[in-house]
Structure formats: structure tokens, C-alpha cells
């Protein structure tokens, strides 16, 4: 009997010891984010998400490295070459994601994605995050290009907020005549210019043709009148002086300074821009869909689920990494929307929040009835094709090539 008691006691001691050790076992995950700049609308929401994660998962320690978006894209691609991507990291969807998936860097998440988790996500957002039937990324936001109009300037110069292309041209002319630069764009960073060309081309060529071209589907072409007309329409804006004289040498940040100062009436940019608007500006700005051209594609949007979190395939803690990845996606979706930084990609009841960013609410409302959403050309295309669309759009902005030459240049991606 004594022996039995001793055995039970020692077993109990061992169990409690292992339990104590198990409790103390902390897993460390490396994480990369792209919101290093204080001005990034998603920075505060992500910091809050990290705090929430630490409270909810004390046994998972996070080592977060902060980058600026472009710098992380390059760093991430370099790290992928040596199989040293962090456990959980931010990445774009579409072609750039496919590059890493093709190289075997990303963990498929299907094994961990339960029906219960899937039910909490907005439907239809995994299109550009799924390859060969496997999900490789979880979105934290839904993107959309919008046109931001500063109503104060529209009222001051008695200009109607444009709903059609002709009204847009009329607005540009009126503002110019009054010495106001009608629009802004950070040409030096290239991609902000794509925001304009993509949406204008979408209005002229439509979702199906643009999607086919950006995803290099068999038989797709840029050599159509619709594409030429689309780029020519952008050229028309440049020729009318819609953009600052030095737009091609401005970075996105520099280009937005004048908008924030209330000097620019119109700006086409992603939904995240609404999160950068000050509370006063939020009262003055309305976000509308890009003016109609009348070719039947006027309720189509550029955007979709273009950004999310991935798990590296070589992570030592795949389960914990998935937990972090899913937590970041879902909670940043909520925190981002509350902070006005992005549209939510996960279902959440926001009725308790009364002070939501009104501009973001407009975007949420407008995009909820969208006919379709298409990823931006420079996100859907990859590698040298993505560089080419950036380079060529920049050349159109600086006047070095014509719309026809742009189409010819872009056609080379099918060779």
C-alpha cells in the first residue's frame, strides 16, 4: 500500500512538474509588417491587434519587424530566395503571392481553416489567394479605388461633383481656370499613377477584358480600341493640366500633402487613403465611384482582397503561426475599419461604434453593390510584367509615349 501511495504521489508530482513546464513553454514567432511609418493608417490598428493577440495568446511571443511597403516587398523576395521568410508576414495577393507559392515558400492553410472560421469571413474574397484549390493567404481588408472629392473646393468654385466623364472634364477645366490644381498623383512611386490608368481602362474595356489581360489569359490583348481609348482618356487629363506640373517627380507622400492641406479637389486612390484623412477633412471629403463613361462598366471597381497575411512553409510552429495569421487577419479587419483604415474582410457587428470614419462608411456602402472587383494591374501581373506596367504608365505621365505605344509595349507581356 505504501508503495502504491508513493507511486501515485510521485506520478502526481511528475505530472504537475510537466504541467508547470508545459505552461511555461513559450513559442516565439517572427512577424513582418509594412506599417513602419507613423502616417500609415493601418499602423495603430495593427499595434492594437498585436496587443490583443498578446493578451489572448500569452504562450506565443511575437517578434515584429517593421518595414515600409516597397522595402518589405524587396526584402521579402530576397528572404524567400534563402528560405528565411518570417513565420507570419504581410503579402499582396494575386501574382506576387503566386510567385512565392510557386517557389514553395507559403504554407497552404486549408488544413487549419475550419468551416466555423470560413463562415466568419466575407464571401468571395479568397479568389486571388487561392491557387490550385488551396488557400495560401487570409485577407484583413477589402480594397477599392475611389475618387475622393473635397466638397469645400467644389462648393467654393461652384462645380458639380462629377458622375460622368464629361462632368469630370468640365470640373478639371473649371478648377484649372481658377488656378486650382484639379488632381494629384505621386508619379515617382509609379503605382499611384496605376490607380488612375487602371480605373479609366476598366471603364472603357470592362472587367472581363482587363482581367483577361492582367492574368494573361489565352487570347487576351491590349491592342484594342477600348484600351487605347482608356489610356488616351488619362492622357487627356494630363494634357488638360489635371495634375501638378512636377507630378512625375513627386512621391505619393509628397503628392498627398496638398490634398491634406485642402488645396486639391479630386484624388483617385485606394480606400486606405480615407484613413489618412484628418477628422476635419473627413467631414469635407466624399468618396465616390469613378465617373461613368457609358460603356456598360460603370459599376465595376478596381480592388478586391489584395492584401493579407501568409505563413512561411518552413515555419517551425505551423499551428501557432496559423493562429497568429488568422488572428491578425480577423482582428486587423475589425480594428482597421474602426480606425477608418480599411474595409472589413471579416463579418463583425459594428453597430456599437458611432464614431466611424464617414468616408470609409461611404466606401463600404458603395462597394457593397459593386458589379465586380478586379485587382490592380501591377498586383495581378508579376515580375517584369509588373515593372513594365509601372514603367509604361510613368512614361505616359511624363509624355514620353503615346497611348498607342503604351498598348504596344504592354502587348509584349504575351510574347
Amino acid at each position, binding site marked *: 500500500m505504501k508503495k502504491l501511495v508513493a507511486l501515485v504521489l510521485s506520478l502526481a508530482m511528475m505530472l504537475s512538474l510537466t504541467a508547470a513546464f508545459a505552461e511555461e513553454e513559450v513559442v516565439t514567432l517572427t512577424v513582418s509588417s509594412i506599417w513602419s511609418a507613423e502616417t500609415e493608417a493601418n499602423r495603430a490598428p495593427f499595434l492594437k491587434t498585436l496587443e490583443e493577440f498578446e493578451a489572448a495568446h500569452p504562450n506565443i511571443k511575437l517578434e515584429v519587424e517593421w518595414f515600409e511597403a516597397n522595402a518589405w516587398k524587396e526584402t521579402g523576395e530576397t528572404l524567400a*530566395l534563402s*528560405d528565411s521568410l518570417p513565420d507570419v508576414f504581410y503579402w499582396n495577393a494575386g501574382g506576387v503571392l503566386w510567385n512565392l507559392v510557386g*517557389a514553395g515558400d507559403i504554407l497552404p492553410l486549408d488544413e487549419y481553416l475550419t468551416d466555423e472560421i470560413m463562415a466568419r469571413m466575407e464571401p468571395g474574397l479568397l479568389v486571388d489567394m487561392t491557387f490550385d484549390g488551396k488557400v495560401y493567404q487570409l485577407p484583413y481588408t477589402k480594397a477599392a479605388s475611389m475618387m475622393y472629392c473635397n466638397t469645400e473646393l467644389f462648393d467654393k468654385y461652384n462645380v458639380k461633383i462629377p458622375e460622368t466623364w464629361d462632368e469630370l472634364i468640365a470640373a478639371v477645366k473649371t478648377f484649372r481656370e481658377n488656378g486650382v490644381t484639379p488632381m494629384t498623383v505621386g508619379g*515617382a512611386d509609379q503605382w499611384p499613377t496605376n490607380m488612375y490608368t487602371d480605373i479609366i481602362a476598366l471603364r472603357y474595356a470592362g472587367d472581363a477584358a482587363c482581367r483577361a489581360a492582367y492574368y494573361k489569359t489565352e487570347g487576351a490583348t491590349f491592342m484594342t480600341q477600348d484600351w487605347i481609348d482608356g489610356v488616351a482618356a488619362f492622357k487627356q487629363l494630363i494634357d488638360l493640366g489635371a495634375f501638378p*506640373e512636377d507630378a*512625375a517627380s513627386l512621391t505619393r507622400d509628397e503628392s498627398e500633402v496638398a490634398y491634406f492641406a485642402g488645396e486639391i479637389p479630386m484624388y483617385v486612390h485606394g480606400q486606405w487613403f480615407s484613413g489618412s484623412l484628418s477628422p476635419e477633412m473627413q467631414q469635407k471629403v466624399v468618396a465616390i465611384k469613378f465617373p461613368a463613361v457609358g460603356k456598360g462598366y460603370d459599376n465595376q471597381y478596381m480592388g478586391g482582397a489584395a492584401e493579407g497575411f501568409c505563413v512561411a512553409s518552413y515555419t517551425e510552429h505551423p499551428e501557432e503561426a496559423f493562429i497568429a495569421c488568422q488572428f491578425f487577419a480577423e482582428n486587423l479587419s475589425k480594428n482597421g475599419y474602426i480606425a477608418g483604415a480599411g474595409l472589413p474582410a471579416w463579418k463583425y457587428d459594428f453597430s456599437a461604434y458611432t464614431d466611424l470614419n464617414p468616408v470609409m462608411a461611404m466606401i463600404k456602402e458603395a462597394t457593397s453593390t459593386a458589379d465586380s472587383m478586379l485587382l490592380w494591374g501591377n498586383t495581378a501581373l508579376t515580375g517584369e510584367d*509588373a515593372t513594365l506596367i509601372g*514603367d509604361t504608365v510613368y512614361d505616359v505621365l511624363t509624355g514620353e509615349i503615346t497611348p498607342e505605344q503604351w498598348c504596344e509595349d504592354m502587348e509584349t507581356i504575351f510574347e
Partner: protein
Amino acid sequence: MKRVLSNKWSIAVFVLPTVLFFTYIVIVPIFKSFYYSLLSEIPAKVGDQSEFVWFANYIKMFTPGRRNDFPGAVVNSLSYAALSVFIQLPFSLMIALILANGIKGESLYRNVFFIPVVISSVVISLLWQRIYKDLVPAVYEVLNLTVPKNGFLANKDTKLMAVFLPSLWQFVGYHMLLMYGALKSIPSDIIEAATVDGAGASRMALRIQIPMIKPMLKVCLSFSLIGSFKLFDTPWILLERANKQLPALSMYVEMFSNHKYSYASAQAMFIVFECLAFTVLLNILFKDRDDMVSRKGRRRHAA
């Protein structure tokens, strides 16, 4: 110690670690890059799918095409090299001569000219970015001049000069200091003798000082040429990434944005060959001159 150093085996033992290290981090990568440059493009990390295409990547580099920027990039780097050799170096030499001949505040000027060399290229680039984007347009406005279309850094006629200027300016002090050091080490009796013989400042510079610092001029010339072909940091930051205007920039974009690893390796090899070729050329040029001078000297001596 002398006995140890006169033994060739012991020299070999001392030098071996450095040689091995140098081979591993410099020589091996060059050969590896050359090997990659002969392969077809491969998806990242999937090594066994590539095949030998021999010099196809090199041919592609110089095949004319509206979107092939590389030949233009080489021409740009050559024009930058020309600017360095014909403007930057003479300017540095002029300052070095003025300072070495002794003026009031010599060390102050010397340090001031050297400051840009100490400052990081990133800081220099950001500084000049503000000069081009804010200061120069403001000055133009006061003078009632029109700023070039799209601004100095995006206008195709001005952007190269705008990019070259900060680099040229930055390294004037560097070459100046090298030349100044060489000038200062000319024995003072030679200078005194020339002065006694009635040589003026310009005669002294042309006949005594410049010929005597020729080895240093050669060093400056090599640094300047090689630096021109490798120029990367200042243009990269000034032009905000949107460019393939110089060989090193093109190589970087092809490698890290376009993922054309083999093609980028071919461009890297071209830069290596270009630097080597010009170094050899420089050596031949200077050697010929040296030989001519010494032959002339011998003939005069024999006569």
C-alpha cells in the same frame, strides 16, 4: 623576424587565410555569377530546371528594342565617367594645387571640401532631392524662369545631369584629399629649387607638381572610372526607384523586381568586365607613358 619573412613558405602561411577568404567572398561569386549568366531563366530555387543557353543573355542585353534600356544605361554610365574624368578630377586637382601651395585657412578649406565624403550617400541624396524639388524651383520662380516639364528629376533632358551632379560634387573632396596628400609629399627642396630657378605657380604645377604626383593621379582615375560604372546609391534614391538608367540600377531591377536572375547575372558580369577592361586600359596607357619617359631619360643620359 627578417629570417621568417624571407622564407617563402612562411609568407605563404601568413597570406593563406586572407587569400582563402578573398577567394570565397570575391572570386567564387564572380565565377558563380558567370555560370548563372549562361543559364536560362529559372524559377527561384528550382535549380535543376535551368539549361545552358551560353551567351543568349549577353546577346539579349545588346539586342536593340524599344524597351531594352541596357545599351542606353551603358552609354549613360560612360558619359558619367567622362564627366568624372574631365570635370570632377581636374576640379579636384585645381583645389588640391591651390591648397597645397599654402593659402590662409588651408586646413579649414581642406576639411570643408572633405565633408560631403564623410556624409552618407543616402543623406546626400535626400539633401539634393530637396534642392531639386524645393530650392531650385523657388530660385527659378524668383528669376522668372520655367522649371522643366515634370520637374528636374523626372524630365528626360535634365534627370541624368540632376543625378550625376550630387555624385560628382560628393567625391570632389575625396580626390582632392588624395591629390593634396601626394602634393604635400613632394620634397620641399625640389619646390625650392624650382622657385629659385624662377618657376611661377602655373609652371611649377604643370612641370613639377603634376608630373610628380602621376601615380596618385592614376589611382584617382581608376577610382573615378570604376566608381562611375558601379554608380548606384545616389541615383537609386534620387530617382525614387523608377528607373533602369544606369547598368547597376538595371541589374538590380532585373534581379529583385523582375526576378530575371540569369539576365541580371549577365548584366553584373558585364559591369565586372567593364571595370576590369578599363583598369587594364588605364595601366597600359600609364605604362606606355612611363616607358616613354624612362626611355627618353636613358637616351638623354647616353648622349
